[in-house]
């Protein structure tokens, strides 16, 4: 439908611009704050243009961290967050693709029961089971470790469900052709299913990486040792300083850096991501 109504055009653009502005403004302010000296942000007049302290702020945050609030250097926290996000992504995809494979392609007693058990855990997000999970992790002595950070978040009903749906769309004849061609269960998985799931895996990776990166509550609970702080929860520690104003310029520098990897991942993986969501290669 092609319409030529100039005012409608102007109006729609205004609405869109307004929406973008609402999203961008806080990010911009965070950026501006991260480029000014200590105290500029809380002096009463908020600067609207970037200042001159950018290099100093980012540099000190990246290498030494915020000693006053006991936060480690950003480099370490970003590394921790990266480890957490990558382990969660890889772990979730590995486990869910294997369990979906089992549920779709094998006949074993309790198959339907297992599927529903997995499916029902969709109703139990991390926050709901956080206290018992903490108890289990603590009893296993996994507090303050990468294992404690990642393991409880790996089991994933959502990804299992997505792979299950994808496998169900594959024609049975493909499996049968592989059987006639002498591919056993392992070969079929490796040679046929994995390559066909490529775009799905890519799309899921993007979603799961961001999910892992922005985890806040769980790292906050299981880590008390600064060596295992992740960046998103580390920001919380920076803000919670006793008897002093938070150093907002440094906090905002940390915020900007925390936002960077998810943005990069989305930009770099965008094409694959859209392909995975839209196209099913059959």
């Amino acid at each position, binding site marked *: 439908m092609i319409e030529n109504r100039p005012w409608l055009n102007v109006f729609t653009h205004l609405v869109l611009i307004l929406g973008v502005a609402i999203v961008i403004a806080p990010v911009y302010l965070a950026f501006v704050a991260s480029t000014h000296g200590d105290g500029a942000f809380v002096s009463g007049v908020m600067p609207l243009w970037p200042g001159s302290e950018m290099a100093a702020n980012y540099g000190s945050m990246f290498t030494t961290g915020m000693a006053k609030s006991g936060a480690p250097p950003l480099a370490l926290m970003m590394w921790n967050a990266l480890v957490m996000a990558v382990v969660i992504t890889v772990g979730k995809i590995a486990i869910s693709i294997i369990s979906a494979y089992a549920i779709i392609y094998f006949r074993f007693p309790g198959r339907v029961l297992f599927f529903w058990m997995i499916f029902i855990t969709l109703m139990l997000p991390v926050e709901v089971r956080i206290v018992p999970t903490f108890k289990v992790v603590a009893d296993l002595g996994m507090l303050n470790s990468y294992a404690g950070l990642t393991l409880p978040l790996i089991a994933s009903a959502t990804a299992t469900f997505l792979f299950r749906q994808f496998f169900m769309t594959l*024609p049975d*004849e*493909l499996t*049968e*052709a*592989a*059987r*006639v*061609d*002498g*591919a056993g269960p392992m*070969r079929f998985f490796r*040679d*046929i299913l994995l*390559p*066909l799931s*490529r775009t799905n895996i890519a799309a899921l990776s993007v979603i799961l990486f961001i999910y892992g990166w922005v985890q806040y509550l769980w790292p906050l609970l299981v880590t008390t040792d600064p060596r295992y702080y992740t960046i998103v929860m580390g920001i919380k520690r920076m803000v919670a300083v006793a008897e002093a104003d938070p150093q907002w310029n440094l906090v905002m520098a940390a915020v900007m850096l925390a936002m960077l990897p998810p943005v990069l991942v989305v930009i770099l993986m965008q094409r694959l991501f859209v392909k995975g969501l839209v196209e099913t*290669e*059959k």
Partner: protein
Amino acid sequence: MATIAIENVRKTYPGGIEVIKGLDLSIAAGELVVLVGPSGCGKSTLLRMIAGLESITAGEIAIGGRVVNNLEPAERDIAMVFQNYALYPHMSVRGNLEYGLKNRGTPRAEIDARVKEAARILEIEPFLDRKPRQLSGGQRQRVAMGRAIVRKPQAFLFDEPLSNLDAKLRGHMRVEIRRLQRTLGTTLVYVTHDQLEAMTLADKLVVMNGGAIEQQGSPLELYGDPQTLFVAGFMGSPGMNLIDVAQLRAAGATLPDAVPAGTGVIGIRPEDVFLEAGRVDGPAITLPARIEAVEMVGAESLAYAAVGGLSQSVVLRIPGAWTGHADTAADLHLPLTRLHCFSKETGRKVPLSAPALAA
């Protein structure tokens, strides 16, 4: 090249539905056997049981003298071509052809030689490095056959391989499959619901209905001498005219003595019904009728004639373009020698009594 022996094979699905009801079939080495029948007759199930994709409830299937009941499809040394081709979408054509050989640990040089040969036979060399989605339906079909050929199996199993092609291509591929099978000399079991395809391809034609074999034999045997009502109606397009004797009698027609006593239905092929008495030699049944409609098919015309008292019209195949007018009265002449008599109760053929025919 191998024989396939099927002995008293049954297939019952959970829930007690019996789809194959104790079936015997022996296939000679190098024979092209076509299983044909309406959908749901169990022909695909039988093929999949030979392939090993369906379990065998009872009975025995042997390929090349070796009982394969409990062997995996890959161990049976067969190759299958599926209706939707089932090519691996992420592999190139070459990858598709190679995959089965690779899984068997065939040496690289041997694989390359076989792929090259298959590609040459099927004329798919230019596409070897393309993905299946970049190919047309006919080309995919060739690749699917190539995947079967490179394996050099004991037997090929084709499951309605031409159903997804347009009519012209289907005719072309039919000839090609026939030629290919002759060249390779490999036993081929071919499933189709298209009786034209079945007629033109088969060395031996097996008509199935309701999980059992109705009749088997050469295509012309089945066409010329159907043993059951089902086969008579199924083979040929249009099928045989099947006329209810009771209706005929009720309309006042008398049947000659040559028609045996137990006959409930008489059948006659459309090409055996004549309008001119002069073209019939020997005794014939004559029925007064009215030509209702004529279809010109090009080389021949199909006329539909209504006979008083019959619920179905009688179809006539007339060579060339028919010059008469529709909606005219005409006499139909049914030569006795071309008549097929069936019992209504058993659906089986009742033989014409030869002495009565001579008289």
